[in-house]
């Protein structure tokens, strides 16, 4: 009882064979070696497992691998271009927006999903954009500043 599913992962075509109801989170980590997606609650509440699915941020713990056929999946591993980190990644480093780092990939992906659709969000829109992500260490002010810095550069 396994399915074969092909999809685009960080710009490359991949094929996996897995139990059909296995979560995208578990497939990414266990079958495809993508460990930036973190299992936190595995119930959609913490956002640590966030990925972009066809450009939209979703919690990969709530997606069955059977629902990913032919889709585009982006994780932080896929954000860098030609060896250059994404502006959001750089900004998180510059601002020191991470403590233990467990939540960081999820926050960056949520922010990326937001900025893809709305390059110039208001402060409220930034807060809503990352409202599905929890930081257990409480780095929220720095996380907000890191995103805000990128937004400011977008405006200029």
């Amino acid at each position, binding site marked *: *009882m396994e399915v074969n599913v092909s999809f685009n992962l960080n710009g490359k075509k991949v094929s996996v064979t897995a139990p059909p109801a*296995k979560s995208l989170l578990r497939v990414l980590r266990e079958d495809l070696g993508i460990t930036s997606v973190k299992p936190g609650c595995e119930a*959609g509440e913490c*956002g640590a497992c966030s990925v972009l699915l066809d450009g*939209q941020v*979703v919690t990969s713990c709530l997606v069955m691998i059977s629902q990913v056929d032919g889709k585009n999946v982006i994780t932080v591993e896929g954000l860098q271009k030609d060896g250059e980190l994404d502006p959001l990644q750089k900004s998180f480093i510059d601002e020191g927006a991470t403590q233990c780092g467990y939540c960081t990939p999820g926050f960056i992906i949520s922010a990326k999903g937001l900025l893809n659709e709305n390059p110039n969000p208001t402060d409220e829109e930034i807060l809503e954009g990352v409202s599905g992500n929890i930081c257990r260490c409480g780095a929220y002010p720095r996380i907000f500043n890191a995103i805000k810095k990128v937004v400011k550069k977008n405006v200029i």
Partner: protein
Amino acid sequence: MSYEKVEVYSPRSLAEALEILSQKKEHIKPVAGGTDVMVMLKDGVVKEKELLNLSYISELSYIKEKESRILIGAATKYREIRRSPIINAYAPILIEAVRQIGSPQIQNLGTIGGNLGTASPAGDSIPPLYVLNARVKLQKIGTSREVQIDKFFLGPRKTVKEPDELITEISVDKMEPGSYYFFEKLGLRSANAISIVSAAGIINLENKTVKYLRLSLGAVAPTVIRATDAEEEAKGKELSEDLIDRIAKLASEATKPISDIRGTAEYRKKATYGIVYEALYRIFKGYGKKIEYGFEKTS
């Protein structure tokens, strides 16, 4: 049932899905966005050994106008509802509720049909659907029927849907221009919180006189309810602080809440009074949201 033992069918058309359902009936469980089913699967409380994945059936996702009604495909995501010009123009009360559901992640996955399928009295799309006179379309091979929203739910997690039926469409009234509306939700925080008490209302005023009030309450009874006594009380009367007090009291009396980890029954009764009073008071004072010529506007 742990995920390893579960089989998944992924039809590409509605006809195919109904065919599978007609054979498997109660042995297969539909999954749309999976935001409820995946959590149940993790908790080991899915009894079905097979899942029917609806996420590839594009014909179940649409928002259309039909005269004075709006038709919404069951697998339409919250994301699409929030962005829909039709819903923004003619049923903004639904937007008020949907933007308070979960988080961006949940809104990008979750569907309105899934909220009805889960049939929680705390489901946040449901109170607006009550005041929009929604009908739920249930379809099986060869036939379909439409059920009024208040006849659809039998209790927590119980509906009139038969195992060989799928929810395929939800239809609602367009709101009348000039109506005021609100959706209020009390949760432990703003994101990813289950409603402790919620209320949806549409109020139509002629000068200051109430032409009609439609008021529904969530998470305070085995199903979402309409506060019909409160609606009757309001009809034909001039809006005043005194009338608002009576409406809020009748709304509170209409509830049959339970105590759980999120709040006691007593708290829910008091909170119902509070959120209904506050929402109507805001409208009374001129700060309410109003739908004007089919377009959202804050008065």
